């Protein structure tokens, strides 16, 4: 633990890299997953195929996927972000689909009866009601990205995983413990924070927040 205190600046830089990697990957993953999830919710035949393919990608070990991307994208942030976006897809698309399918058809029908257009029904009725399930997906995706993101240090994408890899390479026990503490701390903090957001969205969706 002394390592963390004595090298606070360095650890801070790695933490910032890790957060940046997580934020970029999550933003791209969400931008892709929202239309795909919407399509999967509307078309049952698309759903099975899309979730099947994404499930297979999710099963590929991350270190193997990073390595397989090296011939095409080289080292660094780009292959790391691509792999993290791919892993987050299955979680996000599944939860967006399940969330939208779980919306009470009566609520959508009522909105139609009030004269809402299909876009208004989606943005003002379906999406808010599906939000708790979608946010649960975001939380799990963020945890997966943070966890797999530590392995991305192997292909020079930076982040807190650097402490773990260099610590083991140098046989520096304090550095390994610092790396494990920092990555676990980040994951546990992200989990706690996103849980709160999830609970707030659930309260809002059930009408308590208005």
């Amino acid at each position, binding site marked *: 633990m002394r390592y963390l205190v004595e090298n606070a600046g360095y650890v801070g830089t790695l933490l910032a890299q890790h957060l940046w990697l997580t934020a970029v990957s999550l933003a791209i993953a969400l931008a892709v997953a929202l239309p795909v999830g919407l399509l999967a919710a509307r078309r049952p035949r698309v759903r099975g195929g899309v979730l099947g393919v994404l499930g297979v990608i999710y099963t590929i*070990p991350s270190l*193997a996927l990073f390595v397989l991307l090296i011939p095409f994208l080289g080292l660094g942030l780009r292959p790391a972000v691509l792999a993290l976006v791919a892993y987050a897809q299955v979680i996000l698309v599944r939860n967006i689909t399940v969330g939208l399918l779980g919306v009470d058809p009566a609520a959508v029908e009522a909105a139609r009866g009030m004269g809402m257009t299909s876009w208004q029904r989606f943005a003002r009725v379906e999406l808010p009601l599906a939000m708790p399930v979608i946010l649960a997906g975001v939380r799990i995706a963020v945890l997966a990205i943070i966890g797999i993101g530590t392995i991305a240090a192997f292909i020079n994408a930076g982040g807190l995983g650097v402490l773990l890899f260099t610590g083991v390479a140098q046989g520096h026990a304090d550095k*390994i413990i610092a790396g494990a503490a920092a*990555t676990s701390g980040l994951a546990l903090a992200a989990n706690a924070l996103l849980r709160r957001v999830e609970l707030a969205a659930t309260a809002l969706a059930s009408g308590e927040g208005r």
Partner: protein
Amino acid sequence: MLHAALQYALANQAAFWHAAGVHVRLSVAALAIGCLLCVPLGVYVARRRLLAPQVLAVVGGLRVVPSLAILFLAVPYLGLGFLPALVALTILACPPVLINTEAAFRGVDPAVVEAARGMGMDARQVLWRVEVPLATPVVVAGVRTAAVDVFASATLAAFIGGGGLGDFIARGFALFDPAIMLVGAIPVAVLTLGAEAVLAGVQRLLERRAQAA
């Protein structure tokens, strides 16, 4: 590059099969020990309503910790080699098995258990003839999640001296030769997908049997 990878694998067949063997042994042993510890613990916790939330909170927290941290944290305490890798992978296998076992046994319909008691079954018969068959598909689903985690993370064992197919990835990286890395990466991906497919099949089979019973 695939051609170069195949050439390397053929030129180093003994090393390749040895690494693949270590990878499978390490993963299967970690899963087996994880199941032996966590299935009974899960059944026990499912019967203790007051204890369950605390145990599940600890295990849930453990599940959030990145696998690389769990694996590399073994080094300062246990050193390098097969044993630290085995211990770390076993810890990694535990959360999904425990969480699913607890949920499976808690989810058995109390009316079914009551009916079995009414038929004159004792506690042991209720467990083995009623609860176990009904809960097994969900337990196997947890083992399946754990298997994917363990087979994939066993690749990282190479970095802590545990051997396995990750050795080729580490060696290829050190020599700046992507072809050698593929010799590790492709079989690891195939192995993990295979383990997941086999356990998915077992799960479906058990689900059908539980429904028929």
